[in-house]
């Protein structure tokens, strides 16, 4: 059944697949992950703040995002962000933000909910005595969080944060619904153009597998390295 397959199409489309598709995928993943971690950490702190309204709002946001399919959120923001933007800058017409910006905002906000849960677990894993000791030295709550709790929480949770980023790396392929060309989108376009669906989708699967499997193995090795000796 594989007799009439032509793998030459892969070689000829490599510059397009990687030069454009993969660059897009990696860029979106890196930006959304770093911004998502920052926002997620903020959400985790708010949720653990114990301030009634704030804490519930953060919890509600996290629960909402985690309960919706990602594709739905991508659509939602694609149609909503222009109107929100218009409302923010008081413009009478919807703001053109472009598909990439829309995707970036979506992935950041969506992943932040997952990063928030990871960071919440990380913050809670730091013994109460650490906070007590830092407070006893005269530090403010903000200083304690910044210099004592978060650095330890972040280190403890680094493997989980990276694993979540690997999932994000795969999820970015959903941007095809916005007609954006990520790695899978690029492979798909070549596949349709040349009628080489099996070859291209096989190749895409192999690339995703190799990258994610290698990254996961590295994360596992990192896990034993970064653990703080107690």
């Amino acid at each position, binding site marked *: 059944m594989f007799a009439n397959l032509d793998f030459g199409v892969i070689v000829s489309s490599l510059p397009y697949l990687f030069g454009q598709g993969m660059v897009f995928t990696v860029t979106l993943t890196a930006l959304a992950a770093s911004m998502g971690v920052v926002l997620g950490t903020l959400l985790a702190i708010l949720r653990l703040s114990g301030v009634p309204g704030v804490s519930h709002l953060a919890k509600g946001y996290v629960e909402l995002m985690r309960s919706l399919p990602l594709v739905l959120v991508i659509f939602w923001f694609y149609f909503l962000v222009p109107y929100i933007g218009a409302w923010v800058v008081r413009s009478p017409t919807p703001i053109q933000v472009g598909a990439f910006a829309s995707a970036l905002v979506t992935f950041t906000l969506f992943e932040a909910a997952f990063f928030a849960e990871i960071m919440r677990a990380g913050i809670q894993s730091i013994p109460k005595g650490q906070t*007590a000791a830092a407070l006893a030295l005269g530090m403010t709550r903000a200083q304690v969080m910044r210099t004592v709790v978060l650095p330890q929480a972040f280190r403890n949770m680094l493997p989980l944060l990276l694993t979540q980023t690997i999932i994000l790396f795969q999820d970015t392929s959903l941007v095809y619904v916005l007609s954006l060309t990520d790695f899978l989108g690029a492979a798909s376009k070549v596949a349709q153009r040349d009628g080489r669906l099996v070859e291209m989708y096989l190749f895409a699967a192999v690339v995703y597998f190799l990258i994610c499997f290698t990254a996961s193995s590295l994360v596992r090795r990192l896990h034993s390295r970064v653990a703080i000796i107690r």
Partner: protein
Amino acid sequence: MTSTPIPGPDAPTPAGREATLPDDGLQQGPLIPPRTATTGEPMIAINAVSKWYGSFQVLTDCTTTVSKGEVVVVCGPSGSGKSTLIKCVNALEPFQEGQITVDGTKVKDRATNLPKLRSRVGMVFQHFELFPHLSITDNLTLAQRKVLGRSPADAEKRGLDLLARVGLSDHAKKYPGQLSGGQQQRVAIARALAMDPVVMLFDEPTSALDPEMVGEVLDVMVELARDGMTMMVVTHEMGFARKVADRVIFMDRGEIVEDATKSDFFGQPRSPRAQHFLSKILSH
């Protein structure tokens, strides 16, 4: 009225506790700058403090004073509220009734700048609580820089100076996890002293240590007491109490049952509960 923190001649120390420090040993000179002698003025005034966890009362009408230069040992069975009481002094634990005044500043007062108050009250914990992600030097300098605003150079000088005084100069670049429990606790004491506190609180500083490391920590505390530091110490180490305490407070079920001078406490404890406690703790 003046009381001098000199150990009584009748103070026998348990065998092995007099062992000299390992490592490079305590260096000569006081741990803290010399202070004016005890004035009898209250450093910590605890006045009718009561505390509840929900409907469970953990502290009942506790009243006592720690004068400047005085060493007060707080003892009692576990669950008697002694750790809770000492944590109320620097507001790590809130309390519902009564008032505590530290060097003239009210602890339970909205106008009080708690971080500022706490920076003047050193505290040493049962589980050391060094920051495991920071080197020993950074542990010693973090609060000096962030809270007191000292320059990194000044903070490091002060920190390393105190590290030498507790005999651990060689370990400045290590991380807490690489040190033994006794060494970690000595670093924790140095970290608290680096803030130049006016009073030191110790919350069972030797309870989490292996027996062979208790001595090295107590040695540092004895040194500190002899230098004139005002200290409030929750501990079961009766040898330490006999050696340097001016007064002993005995707590049971959230109440201060006995508040006596050292000689009275060890000589003739008045309450049956204290007598019972002492007979159990001193019998082995």
